[in-house]
C-alpha cells in the first residue's frame, strides 16, 4: 500500500489555482521530493496532506486513511517551513512537548529527548529558551521534535531553509540515516542540488500543476535534476 496517495487534488484561493488535479503516490521507504519554484503549490499540497488545508476536490489517502480523518496523521511527523514555537519554552521543553503529543511518557520522554538533541548536535541548547535561539537552531529543534516517537512518515517543508552549509550536510546525513531505517521522507524543497543527492522519487510542480513525476534517475533522461527542472518549468 502506498503511504501517500493523492487523487486529482485541486485547491484555489480566489482566482488563483494553487493545485490543479494533482495526483501522486509515495511508496513506503522512499525519499520523495516535491520540487517547484516559489508559489508553485508545494506548501498547499503538504498542508492538504496534513489536513490543514481543505482541497476543493479530489482526495488524499495516508496509509489508506483519508487525510480529513485525524487518525491519518498517526505515525506522521511534520516540519513546517519556518519552525517556531512559543518563545518562553525551552528547547528541550519543545522537544518533550512533541514527544508527549506522540504519547511518550515518563523517563522514556527524557531519554528520547536527549537522544534526539544529541543526533542534531543541539544538546548544548538544553534549558535555552526558544526566543534566545537562532533560525538554524530552531530548525534543528523542529527536526529533533520530529524524531520523537516512532513516526514512519516524515514530511519536511523546506528543511534546508535557514541552515548553514555544515548544518545542511549534517541534516542530509541524518535524513539518509532515517531513509536507511526504512522511514518514508516527503520533502518539499527548491534546493535542487541537495535534493538530487537525497531523493529517489520526485515531482515537479509549477502553478499548481504537476509537470513531471517519477523515479530518479530514470525520469531525468541523463540530465541533471537542475537542467531537467529548468527545462520543464521554462517550457511551462
Amino acid at each position, binding site marked *: 500500500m502506498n503511504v501517500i496517495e493523492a487523487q486529482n487534488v485541486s485547491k484555489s484561493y480566489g482566482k488563483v489555482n494553487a493545485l490543479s488535479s494533482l495526483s501522486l503516490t509515495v511508496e513506503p521507504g522512499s525519499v520523495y521530493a516535491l520540487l517547484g519554484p516559489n508559489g508553485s503549490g508545494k506548501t498547499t499540497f503538504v498542508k492538504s496532506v496534513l489536513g490543514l488545508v481543505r482541497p476543493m476536490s479530489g482526495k488524499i489517502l495516508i496509509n489508506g486513511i483519508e487525510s480529513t480523518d485525524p487518525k491519518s496523521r498517526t505515525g506522521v511527523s511534520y516540519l*513546517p517551513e519556518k519552525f517556531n514555537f512559543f518563545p518562553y519554552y525551552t528547547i528541550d521543553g519543545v522537544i518533550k512537548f512533541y514527544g508527549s503529543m506522540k504519547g511518550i511518557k515518563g523517563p522514556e520522554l527524557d531519554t528520547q529527548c536527549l537522544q534526539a538533541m544529541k543526533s542534531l548536535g543541539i544538546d548544548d541548547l538544553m534549558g535555552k529558551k526558544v526566543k534566545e535561539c537562532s533560525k538554524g537552531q530552531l530548525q534543528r529543534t523542529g527536526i529533533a521534535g520530529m524524531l520523537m516517537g516512532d513516526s514512519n512518515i516524515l514530511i519536511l517543508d523546506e528543511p534546508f531553509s535557514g541552515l548553514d552549509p555544515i548544518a545542511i550536510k549534517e541534516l542530509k546525513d541524518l535524513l539518509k540515516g532515517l531513509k536507511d531505517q526504512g522511514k518514508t521522507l516527503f520533502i518539499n524543497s527548491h534546493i535542487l542540488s541537495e535534493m538530487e543527492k537525497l531523493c529517489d522519487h520526485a515531482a515537479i510542480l509549477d502553478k499548481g500543476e504537476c509537470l513531471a513525476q517519477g523515479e530518479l534517475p530514470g525520469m531525468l533522461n541523463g540530465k541533471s535534476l537542475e537542467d531537467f527542472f529548468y527545462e520543464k518549468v521554462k517550457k511551462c
Partner: protein
Amino acid sequence: MLSLSPCFKHILLNTVQKEIRNKSIWSLLILTSIVIIVLNALLGLLLQLATEFQAGGAGPSLGTLPLNAFFWLIDIFSTVIAILVGVNSLKSDEENGVNLQLLSFPVKRWEYLLARILGSWGIVVVYYLYSIILAAVLFSISSREFIVGYQVFMALVNTSLIILPTVTIAILFSFFLPKLFAFFFSFFFMLFVTYSNLSVGSVEIGDYLANLSFFKILALPIHYLLPRTGTLSSFTNALLYNVDLPIGSDYFINLAHYVVTIVILISLTGWILKRKDV
C-alpha cells in the same frame, strides 16, 4: 461516546502555561488587587470620618455598598480578562506558527478548540476566585463581619458560567478580526448580549413585541440563541446584593437554556474552525 485523544490533555496544559505568561492578565490582576485594597481603605476611612463627624449620634452605615462596588469591579475586570484571553487563545498560536504544528498531530480540531477554551476559561475563573476572595476578606476585616457565605460561592459558579461564552465569543470573533478589533467587538457584543437579556427578560413577551425598536428586534435572536449572560449576571446580583430578579427568571430554565446554547455556540465555533484553512 465522546472520546478525547491523548493530545487534548497536553494542549489543555499548554493553554494554561501560555495564558499564565500573558502580561495583560498579570497587569489586570495587579490592578484589581491595588484597586480593591485602595477602595477598601478609602471606604473605611470615609466611614470613620463620617462617624467622627456625627459625634455621639448613630454612625452612618454604608451597608454592603463597598462590597457591591468590589463585585461590580471584579465582574467588569473578569469580562475584560475573559475577552483578552479568548482573543489571544488561537490568535497567538497563529502568530507563533504553532497552530500548524499542533494540528499536524492526530488531534481533532474541536479537541484543539475545546482545550483552548477550557484552559482559557480556567485561567479567568482562577482570576475571579482570587479577586472575589481578596475583596470578601478585606471587607470582612474592615467591617468586622464575616461575609464569605454561600452567596459568594454561588456568585462564583454563576460568573464562571458567564466567562465560558465570553471566552468562546472572543475566540469566534478572533477568527475574522485582528486582535484589537476582536477585543473591542467582543466587549461591545457582550454588552449588547447583557442589554438584550435584561431588555427581553424584564417584560412579558407580548408587551415587548408591542413596543419594538431597531435594537429590540436585534435583541430578540441574541436573547434566545445565545447563552443569557445578562440574566445569569442578574442572578449573581440578586445573590450578592439582594436585588429583585427580572420577571420570569426561573434559574433552572435559564440554566437549561444556557447548557443548550453554550453547546451550540462551541459547536458553531468548532464548525467554523474545521472549515478554516490553516
